[in-house]
């Protein structure tokens, strides 16, 4: 079968120690058997490593921050579209998703297809909404509550045993062992990600994650479970292994079926020593370890592009168990002119 030529915009090029999923998503698309891809990298900062990975990106453009609003984003995307004629755009940051979801129809008018969760799906799985989410969809979730002030930390702390988690609404999570630590983390997290901050019961056990893709009709197109084997001080996986765990897959399948999840997702779970499974987070996008799933036999970014374009997608039924990824750091050397060009012109 002839491959289809596609131009695909991808964000999340920050392949740092807290990596975005952009680079592994591009890597997956480059290995597609269905598409010949021209990749348009979309960056927010001029030192995102993916900008300078010329074997992965064909062209890169700077985007305005999500806080600048939808009009600023649309204006910029419109300019990029006039040059590149993107067929599909894959946003990879939690923090930008809301803006992209709000502009989905306008993007479509420009000829740009996306495949993102609906606003309801995105909103109701917020960490702060997790207890209600668990109740609605019949999942075991940790107790959690929103914090808006230091007084909240003190008051709500009385109902939680130490240690508990202090989490940012998009990213970051810290284990607070006492009230002073909790207050300190509240400041740290709120300064970075805004309010509310989330206080969450600490569940002891093994963290396991599942990458999955839902077709928006209740069907799970693919899913691969992974256990982190090496964790950075930011709690990110620096190494991980695919698991043979039907319970994790079934839990994920039920979430997708009940919510009719549309798009990529990562379900973060904790398995306690008593073998109870808690869903601790649902991330509304493909995770940064996506390439492990590709290597294990499920090219979920490629499947997501097919869904975005309305092409038929056959659900994956298999993947390799015991497949391991190990991240590494590599000093990418770039010419000052490349950096200067991107910094001043916002494209390169």
């Amino acid at each position, binding site marked *: 079968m002839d491959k289809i030529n596609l131009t695909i915009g991808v964000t999340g090029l920050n392949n740092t120690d807290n990596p975005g999923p952009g680079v592994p998503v591009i890597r997956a698309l480059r290995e597609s058997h269905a598409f010949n891809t021209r990749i348009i990298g979309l960056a927010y900062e001029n030192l995102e490593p993916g900008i300078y990975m010329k074997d992965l990106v064909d062209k890169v453009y700077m985007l305005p921050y999500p806080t600048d609003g939808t009009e600023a984003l649309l204006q910029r995307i419109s300019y990029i579209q006039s040059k590149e004629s993107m067929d599909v755009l894959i946003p990879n940051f939690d923090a930008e998703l809301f803006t992209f979801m709000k502009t989905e129809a306008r993007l479509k008018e420009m000829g740009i297809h996306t495949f993102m969760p609906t606003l309801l799906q995105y909103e109701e799985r917020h960490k702060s909404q997790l207890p209600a989410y668990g109740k609605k969809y019949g999942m075991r979730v940790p107790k959690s509550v929103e914090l808006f002030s230091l007084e909240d930390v003190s008051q709500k702390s009385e109902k939680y045993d130490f240690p508990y988690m202090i989490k940012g609404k998009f990213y970051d999570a810290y284990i607070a062992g006492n009230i002073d630590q909790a207050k300190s983390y509240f400041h740290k997290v709120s300064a970075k990600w805004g309010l509310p901050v989330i206080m969450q019961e600490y569940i002891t056990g093994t963290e396991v994650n599942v990458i999955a893709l839902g077709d928006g009709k209740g069907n799970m197109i693919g899913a691969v479970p992974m256990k982190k084997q090496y964790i950075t001080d930011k709690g990110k996986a620096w190494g991980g*292994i695919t*698991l043979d*765990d039907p319970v994790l897959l079934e839990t994920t399948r039920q979430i997708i079926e009940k919510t009719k999840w549309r798009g990529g997702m990562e379900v973060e779970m904790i398995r306690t020593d008593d073998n109870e499974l808690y869903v601790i987070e649902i991330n509304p996008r493909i995770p940064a370890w996506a390439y492990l799933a590709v290597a294990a036999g499920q090219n979920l970014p490629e499947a997501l592009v097919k869904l975005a374009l309305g092409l038929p997608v056959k659900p994956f039924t298999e993947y390799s168990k*015991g497949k391991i990824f190990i991240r590494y750091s590599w000093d990418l050397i770039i010419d000052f002119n490349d950096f200067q060009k991107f910094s001043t012109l916002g494209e390169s």
Partner: protein
Amino acid sequence: MKIKANIANSQDGFVFDPTTGDSFSLNQTGIEIIEMMKQNLKEEEIKSTILEKYDIDSNILDRFYLDFLSMLKQFNLVDLNG
């Protein structure tokens, strides 16, 4: 007691549990015991094979064998219903 069906082990003594992602290393005797357990040999058959092959007192073998089984249980490598 049976080793879980999906547990993978190599000739070099590497044991991998694909459900948890955990892996373990065995010495030569451990490799042999696991192999025999996977062949569904009974405890007495396994012990007599070891006693024949190695110069070891049966009481000491009993103790180490029990320790080994406890470890397999602790790491969830055995099917308790099996």
